[in-house]
């Protein structure tokens, strides 16, 4: 179905995508939540467990 070259490209793309999701997912949620929250919270309250 796929040529060997394309197979390699696809698996490479999956690897890159997985790395992006792995490191980017939590920051992405925090960004979405931070920008759309109502009212907008302060950043220190967002990150620190004690504040």
């Amino acid at each position: 179905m796929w040529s060997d070259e394309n197979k390699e490209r696809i698996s490479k793309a999956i690897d890159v995508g997985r790395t992006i999701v792995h490191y980017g997912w939590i920051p992405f949620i925090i960004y979405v939540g931070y920008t759309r929250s109502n009212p907008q919270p302060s950043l220190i309250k967002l990150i620190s467990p004690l504040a």
Partner: protein
Amino acid sequence: MAAALNEKGTAVPPTLVTPPSPSSSASSSILSTVASPFTSLATRFGNWKAGFNLPNPGSVENLQREVKQTHLTNFIFDGARADLTKGLSVDPAFQVTHSFSFGAQSAPSSYHFSAVYANANLLLQGGVGDDGNLNGRLNRQWSSNNLTKVQASLTSSAQAQNMIILEHDYTGSDYSINFKAMNPSPINGTGIYIGNALQSVTKNLALGLETLYQKPTPDMDEFTTSYLLKYTGDRKDWIATAQLQPAGILQATYWQKLSDKVEVAADLQLIAAPQRREAITTLGAKYDFRMATFRAQVDSTGKVSALLEQKYGPSFAFLFAGEIDHLKNAAKVGVGVMIESSSLTPEEMGYPPQGYPPQA
């Protein structure tokens, strides 16, 4: 599962389980002319079925939900733990949680951070542990009938433990369909694919099928189909379910709401394969008090366990868990604390301004 896919993108009325016609992709006029007997038949079948006015049986995933909510198997823990939840916004919901756990017999001390964002039709959830493992979840509600879920669990070490689950739910008027793909590979098609459907047959009884297609390597595959049954009492105060797998595994559950505050549940798991024969029964009860929830459970392997969740005010709860395994002579004890704080004033959180107890 083919039905689920057909349902999504066609003009076939949504009250159909199995559109028998090839009209699914009919968009050109010739095709629609050829298909019209089938579509009209399908419409008539749909109307005939809608005439029975059957209720939606719930999804296959939630078949045993009431039992799982009553039993404490999913809630018990050992060692000490603390969950600090911070609500940052109510609409849309946005909260972050810091969880600490230590002293457990089975796992080392750990820290876990998670964040949830949710509005009416989108849910984003993510959690990361101190070991670098990530759990993520995305649910998108396309319409009142269609829900797509993506789940991922990514590890920083071995590649083999990564897991991606793609799921689509279709909820009809009197049936539910779900299609799931676990670790699907676009290169050689390996992975696990599950399709299931649950259809109301009478007001109380729902029957279903679940088919699992496993393809661990490109030249090896396997089909397994299991059968599902759900019977709901007239007043919805009791539910009995059964799931039969061809390998000789039967799981039967029974749940009953005895009063507003008391629920009981029983679960029987029977394995009658040629090489292995065993059965496990679990009995559990859940009591909901005004400021506390108590769960107790006993099973046929000799385990007795209990879990108490005591709330002190709206934002502070203590958890006590205990389990004694009489056959293995082992015991587990857990103590936990859950603190919910908020950066919002009570009015902003939607509480009425009066009658809100002062926070300690």
